[in-house]
């Protein structure tokens, strides 16, 4: 299962990158990046997954005493939570930038924003 998820995650990253590299439309690039972000989230979670264990929450079924053998690694989940939020923050930011760029030039084609060069 881990491997399936890992492979999915990595493929998502690659697909996202491919989209970002080949689409000149700013919005489509941002969309592609959110896909890549989803991919990395999947990868992280997959790394933390341990077969046959449950979520790291202590309740009636998992007591504090046998947490050691019953729960999976909580750390990757914590990391992903942070990563997701950061991802959305950046995506929102990029969107607004794209909007402003569009406002300036009336286009979303990234190759049209190359005044700064060399």
């Amino acid at each position, binding site marked *: 299962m881990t491997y399936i998820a890992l492979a999915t995650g990595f493929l998502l990253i690659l697909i996202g990158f491919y989209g970002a590299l080949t689409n*000149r*439309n700013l919005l489509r690039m941002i969309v592609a990046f959110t896909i890549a972000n989803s991919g990395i989230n999947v990868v992280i979670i997959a790394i933390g997954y341990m077969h046959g264990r449950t979520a790291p929450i202590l309740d009636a079924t998992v007591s504090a005493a046998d947490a050691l053998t019953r729960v999976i690694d909580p750390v990757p989940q914590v990391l992903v939570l942070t990563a997701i939020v950061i991802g959305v923050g950046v995506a929102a930011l990029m969107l607004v930038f794209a909007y402003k760029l569009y406002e300036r030039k009336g286009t979303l084609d990234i190759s049209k924003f190359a005044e700064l060069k060399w």
Partner: protein
Amino acid sequence: MSTLLTAMTVVLCIAILVAAIVSIQVKGDKSMSIAILAAGLVSLLASVLFLILAAPDVAMTEAAIGGGLTTFLFFFVLARMRNGEREYEEANHD
């Protein structure tokens, strides 16, 4: 049960990948909206995957933020740009 779950996971993953490919490769009239929606779908399906991978917290977050909020943000911005939809074709017409 484990086999079933694995099979489900495989299907799910394939679905995720298909959605992702659609999202980056879709062309045509409404391609931008479709791309955004497909990306949202990727997030939603990923959150299911997170559930399977015993990460309910992450699943909730991904669904709410990745699948929901982000998609709305995209549409908010897209709606402000009348020509945003058509841009794709122009931009890639070379």
